[in-house]
């Protein structure tokens, strides 16, 4: 068989400078750790990781403000556009907070820092992926470090149980994703999304490779369905959500902080890109599947969150619910809808990161500290922590004028202008149910304290600063919603990459 020669790709290194910054930082951390005694200097390494993340974020901002975007590199298999860069910033914020939270915890080690950075690289590549091979590889690069990170407290049986569950279900769902990608390759004969989109636009009743029984349209439909199943697992959509509560409860809080936002951002980014470049122009029905997924995810997430006693589990179900909103907005399939989803994701990241930072600070690494009953009377012991948590919870419950309200408002606008009334009603119903969900811990915090409850651990300065910044951001974005609308407006320029060709 004659195979064509492989042409080495042209690489624009400035476009991948954020990823390179994280890669260099992780290698430096592992190299420096060789010369440090264990337990010593981990604070310095954590600061080094934070500095590397800030450098990556800085080069992201430079790319966003510059005139290079949108552009492709690596022979059109990576796309750098405003969508990817904005989502990269959210991923980096989650990684930064995870590093700050872990710095004073038993899980802190050079390996922990390096694995977090590698997973962040996988997420950043995934939101830029424009090729089936790169897409699959990025999903693996983001997942493999997370499997290990979940098991980073081997002294706790729940940490290992979370790791096994996450690993087995993760590898299982990767199989479905992979089969879906293979079928899309089989329909189009190429791995670049431009080729896949061109092939899917013309699939019809023609049979596959001259075989009567199997039509190309059927193969394309099954392929898209399997890809959505695989990515739905990463996004935590119902019915692929079973791992979420157990992993959120069992894994170290700093890891959950990072993965709750990071995997959601990455999975939404790649799904949005697939919808905008491949699904919308295809001759295949994809909206029914996503609508059913969205309705099931919103309703199941909201209802199952009500009886939870463990704060991390509660936020796990809240994450499922919010994944439902994201899937719903993708059904519309317009660039304005994608922009609304990105805005919602930014506000969700702010309040979710804040809530997990408070949980981490209040629990002090104790298993009992993450129960909601532990929050009774928090206001009388640490008033500012309670106020910050109240801001995050009210924002999650979409109370105006906080950031979460406008995120939800833009999603509703996109759904109504896209004539998705059933989905809009489901979003409203889900929001109504969450008032009960978030109201319970809220009431506990402001009720009189238990006289025999143990004193709360002292909060590290960096964590207190991070919580304060996030709370101020949630209020500020709510009061001035236009502040990031301009940023997100640039995101709606994505589309089918008309200006640039995927060589």
């Amino acid at each position, binding site marked *: 068989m004659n195979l064509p020669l492989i042409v080495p790709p042209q690489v624009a290194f400035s476009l991948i400078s954020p990823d390179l910054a994280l890669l260099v930082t992780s290698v430096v951390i592992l190299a420096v750790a060789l010369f440090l005694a264990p337990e010593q200097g981990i604070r310095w390494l954590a600061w080094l990781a934070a500095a590397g993340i800030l450098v990556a974020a800085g080069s992201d901002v430079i790319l966003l403000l510059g005139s290079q975007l949108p552009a492709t590199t690596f022979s059109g298999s990576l796309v750098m556009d405003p969508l990817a860069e904005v989502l990269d910033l959210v991923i980096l914020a989650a990684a930064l907070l995870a590093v700050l939270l872990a710095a004073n915890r038993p899980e802190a080690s050079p390996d922990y820092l390096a694995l977090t950075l590698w997973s962040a690289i996988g997420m950043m590549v995934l939101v830029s992926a424009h090729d089936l091979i790169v897409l699959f590889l990025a999903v*693996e690069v983001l997942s*493999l470090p997370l499997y*290990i990170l979940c098991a980073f407290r081997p002294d706790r049986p729940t940490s290992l*149980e979370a790791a096994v569950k996450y690993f087995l279900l993760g590898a299982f769902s990767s*199989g479905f994703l*992979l089969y879906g990608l293979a079928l899309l390759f089989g329909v189009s*004969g190429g791995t670049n999304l431009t080729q896949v989109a061109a092939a899917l636009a013309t699939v019809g009743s023609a049979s596959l490779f001259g075989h009567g029984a199997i039509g190309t349209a059927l193969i394309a439909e099954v392929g898209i369905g399997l890809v959505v199943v695989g990515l739905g697992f990463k996004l935590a959509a119902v019915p692929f959500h079973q791992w979420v509560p157990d992993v959120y409860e069992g894994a170290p809080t700093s890891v959950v902080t990072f993965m709750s936002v990071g995997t959601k951002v990455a999975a939404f980014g790649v799904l949005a890109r697939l919808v905008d470049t491949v699904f919308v122009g295809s001759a295949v029905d994809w909206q029914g599947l996503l609508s059913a997924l969205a309705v099931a995810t919103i309703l199941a997430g909201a209802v199952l969150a009500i009886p939870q006693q463990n704060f991390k589990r509660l936020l796990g179900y809240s994450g499922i619910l919010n994944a439902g909103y994201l899937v719903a907005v993708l059904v519309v399939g317009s660039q304005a809808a994608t922009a609304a989803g990105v805005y919602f994701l930014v506000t969700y990241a702010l309040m979710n990161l804040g809530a997990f930072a408070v949980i981490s600070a209040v629990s002090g690494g104790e298993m009992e500290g993450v129960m909601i009953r532990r929050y009774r009377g928090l206001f009388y012991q640490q008033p500012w922590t309670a106020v910050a948590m109240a801001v995050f919870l009210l924002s999650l419950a979409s109370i105006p004028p906080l950031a979460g309200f406008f995120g939800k408002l833009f999603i509703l606008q996109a759904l109504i202008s896209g004539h998705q009334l059933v989905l809009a009603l489901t979003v409203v119903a889900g929001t109504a149910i969450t008032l009960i969900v978030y109201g319970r811990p809220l009431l506990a915090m402001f009720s009189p304290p238990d006289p025999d409850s143990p004193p709360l651990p002292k909060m590290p300065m960096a964590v207190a600063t991070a919580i304060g910044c996030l709370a101020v951001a949630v209020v500020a974005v709510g009061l001035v919603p236009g502040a990031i609308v301009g940023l997100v407006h640039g995101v709606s320029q994505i589309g089918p990459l008309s200006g640039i060709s995927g060589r």
Partner: protein
Amino acid sequence: MTLPTVDFLVVSALLFAIGAVGVMVRKNPLIMFMAIELMWNAVNLSLVAFARQFQAISGHIFVFVVVVAAAAEVAIGLIIIVLVFRHRDQADVDTLNAMKG
């Protein structure tokens, strides 16, 4: 004599289904993991068949990438599974029930 591509696809789909059913019915995490590997390799068969049909090298490269990712997955998965069941009498996912709800 060359076999038609569709025959490979049918075999691949059957292997994938056997793997998926295996994950769902078996309780031993090692066996479940083997079934997952079967699913991945069933997909590899599909990819190679498509690559032959299209004479496209990208399909072969895809298979190499999948094999490398699967190797990394094995390394990590076995560590986690061994770590968990070092302190337990039996390897059975039904005993992993500390967390519920």
